[in-house]
C-alpha cells in the first residue's frame, strides 16, 4: 500500500481527512488532538488527572497564548462572526423595507384568494372565525400534516427518552424517581388554578369556530395545565386520571378519527358529493360542520403531546 501512495501522509486528501476527523494538530506536535476511542479510555494510563505534570501543563498553556496561529484564528473568528451578523441584519432589513405596504389595495397580497376566503368563507364552511375556515377548511390538508408532525415528534421523544417502569422503580439515586415535595402554597394555588385553566382550554377548543383560537391554542393551554398539575402533585396522583394507557388511546384515537374525517371530507369534496355534516346556523355552538370535531381532535392531540414532552423529559415515562 505504501508503495502505491508513497507520500500519502502529505497528500491533500489525507490532510483534509485528518482535518475533518479532528486529528490535525494546530499546536504543531505539542498535543494529541485525536479523540480517544472507548477501548483506549478504559485503561488508566491514557488520562489520569492526578499524574499530570504541572510544568508541562504551564508550558502548554503558555505556548497556547503565544501561538500566532491561534491568535490569528481568534481574531478572524471574531471579525467573521461580526461581519456575518451585520450581513444578516442588513439582508433582513432590506427585505422588510421592500415588503408591500399593509392594506395597499394594489399589493400582491390582495388577490382573489383572500377575497374568496373573506366573502364566501362563512357560506362555504359555516364558521364565523375566518381563520378557522382557512386553516381547517380551505387548507385542511396542511393542518393534517402539522398534526402528523406533532405525532412524529412525540414518537421520537418517546424513542429517545423512554424508560421502563421497572427501571424507574428500581433505581434509587437518580432524580427521576422522586415525586415533588408537598408544598402548601403551590398545592393550594394549583388546585384553584388548574380547573380554571382546563375550563379555559376547553372553551378555546369548543369555540374555535366562533372566536379566536382553536385546537392548537386550546390544546397547548390544557397541556400547560396538566404540566402544572404534575409538577405540584407528582406522577402517581396524575396517573389516576391520565396514565400511559389513556395517553395512547387518546392520542392514537384522536389522530385516526381526524384522518377518517379528513379522508371523508376530501372524498366528498373531490367528487362533488353533498357533505353529511350540516353547516348549521353560523354563530351557533353546534355549527360549521366538520370544523368543531376537527378542533376537538387537534386539541386532544396537542394537549397529549405537550404533556408527553414534559413527562418524558422529567421522568422518562408517563
Amino acid at each position, binding site marked *: 500500500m505504501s508503495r502505491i501512495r508513497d507520500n500519502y501522509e502529505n497528500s491533500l486528501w489525507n490532510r483534509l481527512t485528518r482535518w475533518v476527523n479532528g486529528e490535525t494538530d494546530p499546536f504543531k506536535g505539542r498535543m494529541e488532538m485525536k479523540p480517544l476511542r472507548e477501548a483506549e479510555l478504559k485503561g488508566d494510563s491514557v488520562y489520569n488527572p492526578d499524574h499530570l505534570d504541572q510544568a508541562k501543563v504551564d508550558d502548554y498553556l503558555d505556548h497556547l497564548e503565544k501561538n500566532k496561529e491561534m491568535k490569528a484564528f481568534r481574531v478572524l473568528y471574531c471579525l467573521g462572526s461580526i461581519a456575518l451578523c451585520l450581513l444578516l441584519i442588513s439582508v433582513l432589513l432590506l427585505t422588510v423595507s421592500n415588503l408591500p405596504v399593509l392594506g395597499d389595495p394594489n399589493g400582491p397580497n390582495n388577490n382573489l384568494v383572500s377575497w374568496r376566503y373573506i366573502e364566501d368563507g362563512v357560506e362555504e364552511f359555516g364558521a364565523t372565525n375566518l*381563520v378557522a375556515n382557512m386553516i381547517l377548511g380551505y387548507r385542511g390538508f396542511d393542518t393534517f400534516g402539522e398534526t402528523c408532525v406533532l405525532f412524529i415528534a412525540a414518537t421520537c421523544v418517546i424513542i429517545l427518552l423512554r424508560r421502563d417502569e421497572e427501571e424507574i422503580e428500581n433505581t*434509587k*439515586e437518580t*432524580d427521576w*424517581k*422522586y415525586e415533588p*415535595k408537598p408544598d402548601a402554597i403551590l398545592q393550594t394555588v394549583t388546585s384553584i388554578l388548574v380547573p380554571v385553566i382546563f375550563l379555559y382550554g376547553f372553551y*378555546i377548543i369548543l369555540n374555535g369556530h366562533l372566536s*379566536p*383560537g*382553536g385546537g*392548537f*391554542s*386550546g390544546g*397547548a*393551554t390544557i*397541556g*400547560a395545565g396538566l*404540566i402544572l398539575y404534575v*409538577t405540584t402533585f407528582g406522577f402517581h396522583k396524575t396517573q389516576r386520571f391520565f396514565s400511559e394507557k389513556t395517553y395512547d388511546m387518546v392520542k392514537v384515537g384522536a389522530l385516526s378519527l381526524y384522518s377518517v374525517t379528513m379522508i371523508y371530507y376530501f372524498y366528498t369534496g373531490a367528487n362533488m358529493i353533498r357533505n353529511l355534516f350540516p353547516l348549521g346556523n353560523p354563530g351557533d355552538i353546534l355549527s360549521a360542520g366538520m370544523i368543531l370535531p376537527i378542533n376537538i381532535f387537534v386539541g386532544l392531540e396537542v394537549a397529549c403531546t*405537550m404533556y408527553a*414532552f*414534559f413527562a418524558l*423529559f*422529567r421522568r422518562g415515562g408517563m
Partner: protein
Amino acid sequence: MEVFKVILLLFLIVCAVSVSFIKSPLTSVIVFMSYSVVMSMIWFILESPDLAITEAAVGAGVSSILFFVTLRKIQAIAQKGDGNEQNQG
C-alpha cells in the same frame, strides 16, 4: 397606543440581545420567557389573539419548563433539596 407599542418593541430587542450575553443559563431562560410574554402582547396588539394565546402557552410556558427540566437534568441548576431527599430515600 403607539408609545406602548414602541416600548414593547424596545423591550423585545433588549431581551433578545441580553439572552445571548447572559452567562447563567437559568437567567437566560427567564429572560427568554419574558421575551415570549412581550411577544404575545405584541401579537395581541397586531390583532391576532389566537397567536397570542399559543405564544403565551407554548413560548412562555411549556418550552421554558422543558428548558428548566433539561438544565436540572444536566445539573446546570443547583439542586437545593436533593441532599435531603437522598437521605430520606
